[in-house]
């Protein structure tokens, strides 16, 4: 379909600016003409053009509300509509971040309470709500680690990261100036204890562990892992993006994690919005709280206010207080579910993943054959070997069956990985339909591999030339010229 620029016609408009109701003089008398822009080169369309354009675009997009979205590691659960309604209340949207605290007691109370609920759920002493997403939470966590050792007068330059970790973990470590050391996985998809023991020296700030990890496994030896890290004075960091697996079943703080970042947009059902906004709170054990970013919400008697009075803080990772409006959605969700609902959430998420694992394991190779948590990882190797059908082909073929594909080629340690996270909001019927599609594709791979390799064939565009896109990048419309 046409770009909005191609629909533009000189003189059309979808807006009408109020007329100037105050005395005014020509701008040129106020600002040096050389500092003024010549032309605003934006599209000119009517409101109807605009609405049809974006409505049509929306109809070329797939969301959870349209169908099953088992994107591993992303927790694409259903986002209750009540969260959206609550977040649209003008009381929440219309306040300036510097409005006086007397105007914002509702917002402050919400942040304060959300923090307390997260502390209880994860067994941490305190939380900051400032980070805008999981990756920024990681960064914040690693900054806290860094500052912790600085304050102790220790110089630790390395950070350990399992090979199965999400790319943001090493990237966050690096962005904090740490040298990242990869810890291999063992034969069961857990941390290789021997390797960890060897790598965990006094030069190491700690271990960033995703738990359950990106293979969907809970770290069985977590006690041992924690001991090794702590024995060398290191910190145990939890990438909590997979927290949907264990709510009400265990608490990272109890296990020995010193820090954790959460992805509210995964676990607590705030929608992903095609890639944000998110929210990535960071929880810490008692003695690390003094390093948390400022400001922090505190309660004085019955009133809430911000305090900046934390001299050891790492500072700020974001202006203002974090993605407040995302917090409203997560808070609403937590209030509706309570402890009971959250436990059921994880129970059903894990049930769903194990069910898919059980149903598909005759047809696809399992990366590791053991009980999984909220997601399961297959390998498409069998299909490559036997029919030269790759995981990418299987994913694209799923589009023709009306499903969003799983995450593919991640974690990187599984060749031709297919990472399926059904989430708890999906019904058995949906899982069955998905499994049947996967089984049908496995059969197609045998009987008609060309069809799978040629997929998709029912989408608005067919497979796109990514190489061309990268070789000759066109990331901005040059216009008609």
């Amino acid at each position: 379909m046409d770009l909005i620029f191609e629909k533009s016609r000189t003189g059309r408009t979808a807006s009408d600016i109020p007329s100037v109701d105050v005395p005014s003089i020509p701008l040129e008398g106020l600002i040096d003409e050389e500092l003024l822009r010549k032309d605003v080169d934006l599209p000119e369309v009517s409101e109807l053009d605009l609405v049809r354009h974006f409505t049509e675009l929306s109809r070329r997009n797939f969301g959870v509300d349209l169908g099953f979205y088992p994107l591993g590691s992303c927790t694409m659960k259903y986002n209750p509509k009540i969260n959206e309604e609550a977040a649209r209340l003008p009381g929440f949207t219309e306040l300036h971040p510097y409005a006086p605290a007397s105007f914002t007691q509702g917002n402050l109370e919400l942040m304060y309470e959300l923090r307390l609920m997260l502390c209880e759920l994860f067994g941490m002493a305190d939380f900051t709500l400032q980070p805008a997403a999981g990756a920024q939470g990681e960064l914040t966590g690693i900054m806290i680690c860094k500052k912790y050792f600085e304050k102790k007068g220790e110089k630790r330059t390395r950070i350990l990261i399992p090979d199965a970790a999400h790319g943001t973990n090493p990237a966050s470590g690096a962005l904090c100036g740490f040298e990242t050391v990869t810890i291999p996985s063992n034969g069961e998809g857990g941390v290789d204890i021997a390797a960890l023991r060897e790598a965990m020296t006094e030069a190491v700030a700690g271990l960033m562990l995703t738990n359950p990890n990106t293979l969907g496994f809970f770290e069985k030896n977590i006690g041992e892992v924690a001991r090794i890290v702590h024995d060398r004075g290191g910190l145990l960091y939890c990438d909590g993006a997979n927290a949907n697996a264990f709510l009400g079943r265990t608490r990272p703080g109890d296990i020995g994690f010193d820090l954790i970042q959460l992805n509210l947009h995964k676990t607590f059902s705030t929608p992903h919005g095609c890639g944000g906004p998110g929210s990535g709170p960071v929880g810490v054990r008692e003695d690390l709280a003094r390093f948390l970013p400022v400001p922090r919400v505190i309660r004085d008697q019955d009133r809430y206010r911000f305090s900046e009075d934390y001299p050891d803080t790492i500072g700020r990772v974001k202006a203002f207080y974090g993605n407040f409006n995302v917090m409203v959605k997560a808070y609403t969700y937590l209030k509706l579910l309570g402890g009971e609902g959250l436990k059921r959430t994880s129970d059903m998420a894990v049930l769903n993943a194990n069910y898919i694992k059980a149903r598909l394991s005759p047809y696809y190779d399992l990366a590791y054959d053991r009980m999984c948590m909220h997601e399961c990882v297959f390998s498409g190797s069998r299909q490559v070997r036997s029919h030269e059908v790759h995981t990418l082909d299987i994913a694209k073929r799923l589009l023709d069956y009306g499903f969003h594909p799983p995450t593919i080629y991640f974690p990187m340690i599984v060749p031709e990985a297919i990472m399926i996270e059904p989430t708890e909001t999906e019904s058995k019927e949906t899982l069955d339909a998905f499994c049947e599609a996967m089984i049908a594709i496995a059969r197609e791979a045998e009987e008609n591999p060309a069809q799978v390799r040629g997929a998709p064939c029912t989408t608005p565009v067919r497979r796109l030339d990514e190489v061309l896109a990268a070789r000759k990048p066109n990331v901005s419309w040059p216009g008609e010229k």
Partner: protein
Amino acid sequence: MDYTPHTPDDIATMLQTIGVASLDELFSDIPEAYRLKNLPDLPAPLSEQEGWRHMVHLAAQNTLPAMTLMGAGAYHHYIPAVVGHIVGRSEFYTAYTPYQAEISQGILQAIYEYQTMIARLTGMPVANASMYDGASAMAEGAVLAGKTLNRDRILIARSVHPEYRRVVATYCAANGYTLLEIPYSATGRLDTAALAQAIDGQAAAVCIQSPNFFGIIEDLRDIEPVAHATGAFLISGFTEATSLGLLKPAGELGADIVCGEGQGFGNPMNYGGPFLGIFAATEKLLRKIPGRLSGMTVDLDGKRGFVLTLQAREQHIRREKATSNICTNEALCALAASVHLVSLGKNLRKLAELNVHKARYLKGKLSALADWDLPFTAPVYNEFVLSCPDPEKVNAAWQEAGIVGGYTLEKDYPERKNDLLLCATEMLGRADIDRAVAIAAEVR
């Protein structure tokens, strides 16, 4: 309330298929010692009706301001009704990052159009799909400069938003960079002489903001040669997106990176977030910039289409060597900005002018009050600094009337004890302004 659809029958059948006897068994990998015996101690669950009532009640604990005279990094603008309508389409808001291009052409094209509009507005050839906010965008710009040039000093104007400076400082500290603040001059603009003195061959970037924190339009013609003399990057930031409709793009004035806050385009103030980090750069930096990029390409049939491109920059491919760790960004906020910008079209200029006129009117009225003064002389957009005998008292009087007043500069600039930073947007009618002035005039 919970949102799981499982009936007892479903659960029983599924457990059987899996081959376990109970849900508990599914969690047997969790060492016994760490298993919770009790439910988390959270408030009792609410039905949707009760939850809604609670949320309405909580929102009502806030005061909806009669008017907002505060800018300082967050701006009260009118958001056309089409914006909410479009971002409320669940095909958009319930989707993930568009990894599967064939069923994500909607957002990929929308982001491509967003990138184009941002590129045009900033005068840069490329813009990314968004950053967390203006502050972290500037911080990532500084880190990018440091890494690209392999230098470890960042210079930043003291007239950059104090929180942006703090965020840049935090990111710099993590990277071991030193950060040096460059003072402002008597006009309120960057002190270019001081900059010339401070800059050296280790300086990776000069970070400025225009309009700066005092609302003043910087003259990049003076700054650019000084920054570039030693090969540093000129990073030009902004907090007020609508100013782009009026001011000559920093890209045309020699900036290497233009980054700033896009909230003013289509996003409510939301008590500070989510906001929208804008990041645009020169062609040379294309393969180094942080964040997502949507690129145009063709499909197997030669049909135009869009994909996430240059992913080799990103963490999920490059891991510790990635140019940034950013993953989830602010895509829906970028979409809102797009819709607003398309709605405005060339009227963006008219909107920006209206802001100038409103601010000038407010400034003129207040500065005419006894003992009120204008400490700075350089031209402004929609924010300005005034000095008055007792800024706190004025703010208190406004607050009393339900008005969010100005920003007291003393917090961040101890030398500016009597200064108040104020903002007027199109949301203030003449009568509003007159009322605010009348209240200020009463303060003794």
